[in-house]
Each structure stands twice: as structure tokens, then as C-alpha cells.
């Protein structure tokens, strides 16, 4: 489904509270963020939270969370010597297998391959605050990972 434009005006106060849910996921993407928890942070109803979040930020909350987890895993692979298992755990996955599969689906290469490639091509962006560099390399997931998998199988 394409990300259709949201023509109806959104209540800035609600958006500000939805932003709080986004900020909380940003701060701790490795934690579990079930909808009731996110709705509570936003002071929004559970029934409307996911739709409101998508209207506000263009992606459903859990796909957004996935982009942050991949971003964190990517940064840890690039910037640390931590074993991949530890990185999977720190980025919010309970299983190395799921992490590896999801990472490959999103980035098109395995965590190990990404790490080797990132080491060969340093970013050289020391003058840019680290979080902005990291955010600029966040995956742009316009479709869900399952859709992406289906599309690739169909090729």
C-alpha cells in the first residue's frame, strides 16, 4: 500500500504526544514496545494509536521501531568489536537467527558482510554529531519486511 498523503489536519497537541512515543522508542529501541505501552506514553487510546502514529510519521509504529533497531545494530557493527550475537541482543532481538534474517532482508547483506564492508569504507564524519550520522543511514522502510520478502521471492 502506498503511503498516501494525509490531507486532514492533525492536532498538533496529539502530534507532540505521539512524538513522545517515537522519542521513547528512539531512546530504547531494544526494549519491547507493545501498543498499550506506546499509547500510554502518548496519552492516546490504544485503538487509535497505531493509525495516528502512521498518519503522523508515515510508518506504523513497529516498522519504525524496526528501523531504529537496524540503525542501532548497524552502528554497533560498524563502530564496535562486539560479537554479532551480542549486537543482536543489544539491538532488541532475542534470537541470532531472526536478527540475521531480518538484517539481510532490510540491508541486502548479512551483518558480517556489512561489518566487513563498513570497515573498508570509513565515514569520516567526525564533525557531524553522531546521532545525525546514524539517523541519515537509517533504513527507509516504505514497505514492511514481509512485503519485501514476498516481492523478492516473486522476482
Amino acid at each position: 500500500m502506498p503511503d498516501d498523503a494525509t490531507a486532514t489536519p492533525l492536532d498538533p497537541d496529539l502530534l507532540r504526544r505521539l512524538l513522545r512515543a517515537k522519542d521513547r522508542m528512539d531512546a530504547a529501541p531494544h526494549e519491547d514496545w507493545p501498543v498499550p505501552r506506546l499509547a500510554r506514553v502518548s496519552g492516546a487510546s490504544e485503538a487509535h494509536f497505531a493509525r495516528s502514529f502512521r498518519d503522523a510519521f508515515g510508518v506504523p509504529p513497529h516498522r519504525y521501531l524496526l528501523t531504529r533497531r537496524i540503525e542501532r545494530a548497524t552502528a554497533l557493527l560498524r563502530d564496535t568489536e562486539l560479537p554479532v550475537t551480542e549486537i543482536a541482543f543489544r539491538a532488541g532481538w532475542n534470537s541470532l537467527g531472526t536478527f540475521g534474517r531480518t538484517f539481510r532482508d532490510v540491508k541486502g547483506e548479512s551483518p558480517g558482510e556489512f561489518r566487513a564492508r563498513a570497515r573498508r569504507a570509513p565515514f569520516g564524519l567526525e564533525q557531524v554529531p553522531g546521532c545525525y550520522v546514524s539517523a541519515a543511514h537509517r533504513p527507509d522502510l516504505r514497505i514492511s519486511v514481509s512485503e519485501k520478502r514476498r516481492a523478492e521471492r516473486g522476482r
Partner: protein
Amino acid sequence: MSAGVGVVGVYVRDQEEALGFYVEKLGFRVHTDVGKGEYRWLTVQHPEQPSFQLGLFTPQPPTLDAATAQTVREIVAKGAMPPLVLVVGDCRAAYDEMRGRGVEFTQEPIDRYGSVDAGFRDPSGNGWKMIEARRTST
């Protein structure tokens, strides 16, 4: 300073609320506050940076038409305005102090790239990164 950037503005949802935040919670000073009627020109200043003013402006008619003002309010509330960076001498101390005053932090202080940084937002949604000044001496 005779030449350089003098004022950069951020959009805020409510100037009175923003004034309270930047002055009482961040320790800025009011530089200019004029025109309390329809349009209010309000700028604040970091106490150690007299050559620079941060403008706190509301998106509203007649400067912007009503529809554009609404769009800007949405953008600000979504945290989509560009990054702002506040440089401090001691990030952890500033974090403790500001947090005690009720500043909404989005990121606790983290050591990275030879410095320490934290993140907070103003009440409107403008996102600030707070970065500890790098020690240039060895």
C-alpha cells in the same frame, strides 16, 4: 562582533510557554520582547553568547496564512524541524540540573566520539542535542 549570524528563529506553539522554558529551565535571558499584540518579536540569548539571539516565533497569520501556519505547527510538533545543538561545559552536570527543572530529555548522556552528548526537546517539539565542548588541551 560586527559581521555574522545574529538571529536564528525556531517556531514554537506558544511564546509564553517557550519563554518559560528557555529562560527558567535553560537559563537563557530575554534579549528582545516587543509587540505583545497580534505579533510578538521575542528573542532570547545564551548568557555566554551575547552576539547571538535565538528567536522564539509562533507560526501565525498575518506572517503566514492560516493553512501554512497549521502545517508548520504540525511539523514542529512532529519534531521534524532541523537539529539544534547546545554546547555545554559538562554534559552530565547540565543534564542533572536541567532534568531537575523538568526538561524533557529524549536521550541520557552518552560517551561517544571523545565527547558526551544528551538530547532534549522544548515543549513545542524542537529537538536539541546537548554536547559537551571537546577539551582542546591535552
